[in-house]
């Protein structure tokens, strides 16, 4: 059974799905990610789906489930890199992925997580910039 690697980069976990996943592979990823969040204490998860040429309802549900699991484990999930044709198809399929944060690419996803953390930690009012927050965390 193939497994999708979960990489720790700084205080974030990066998952880049590069294969056409069997359903079981998607289910394994949910478990691996939950374990890794707890083991590392990471507060952010980026799931890169730029290599996926389709997202069907099963994978869509997996993304929503991962976002939900992360949330209760005190981590934020951002799905990045969705192809335009996939977005069009997903919406027509009836899946608009409510509750899932998205960004166009990994870089923007990391910026989104950093900003979310900054706001969650009550930053902003002291006029700190992002670098100060990154250094403090």
């Amino acid at each position: 059974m193939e497994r999708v690697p979960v990489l720790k980069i700084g205080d974030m976990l990066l998952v880049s799905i590069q294969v056409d996943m069997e359903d079981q592979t998607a289910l394994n990823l949910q478990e691996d990610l939950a374990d890794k969040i707890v083991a590392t204490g990471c507060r952010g998860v980026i799931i890169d789906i730029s290599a996926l040429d389709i997202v069907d309802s099963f994978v869509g549900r997996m993304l929503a489930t991962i976002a939900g699991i992360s949330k209760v484990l005190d981590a934020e999930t951002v799905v990045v890199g969705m192809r335009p044709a996939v977005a069009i198809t997903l919406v027509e399929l009836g899946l608009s992925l409510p509750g899932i944060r998205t960004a166009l690419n990994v870089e923007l996803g990391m910026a989104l997580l950093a900003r979310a953390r900054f706001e969650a930690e009550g930053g902003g009012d002291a006029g700190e910039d992002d670098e100060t927050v990154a250094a403090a965390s």
Partner: protein
Amino acid sequence: MNAEPQRLTVASDQDVVRVRQLVRTVAVAVKLSLVDQTKLVTAASELARNTLVYGGGGTVEVDRVDNGRRAGIRIAFVDSGPGIADVNLALTDGYTTGGGLGLGLSGARRLVDEFDIDTEPGRGTSITVTKWCR
């Protein structure tokens, strides 16, 4: 004009992946647009999973078609599982008996140009979808 139809057995998760790959290959060959390829492969993935999960496995046949004006692809998903008692209910968004999102059948219908379903309790289910080039 028409190549031989290609048939796959659907008996495992892996076979659902194979269905997606075959449909993608044929969709490229008949020159569907990228968005239409994506829609058709997504619909095929939903329906092949239904064949596996609800139908207990079955077959998928992928065929190139031509109506004289346009080329297209026809895909038939056939199982001899329990069948569907209430097709209208099964085609309702959000209705599921399998713990999923209930979007597979209804969503797949929206993603194709033609959608025919032939089912009867105890006799199995046969779903045929067609996507035409624009």
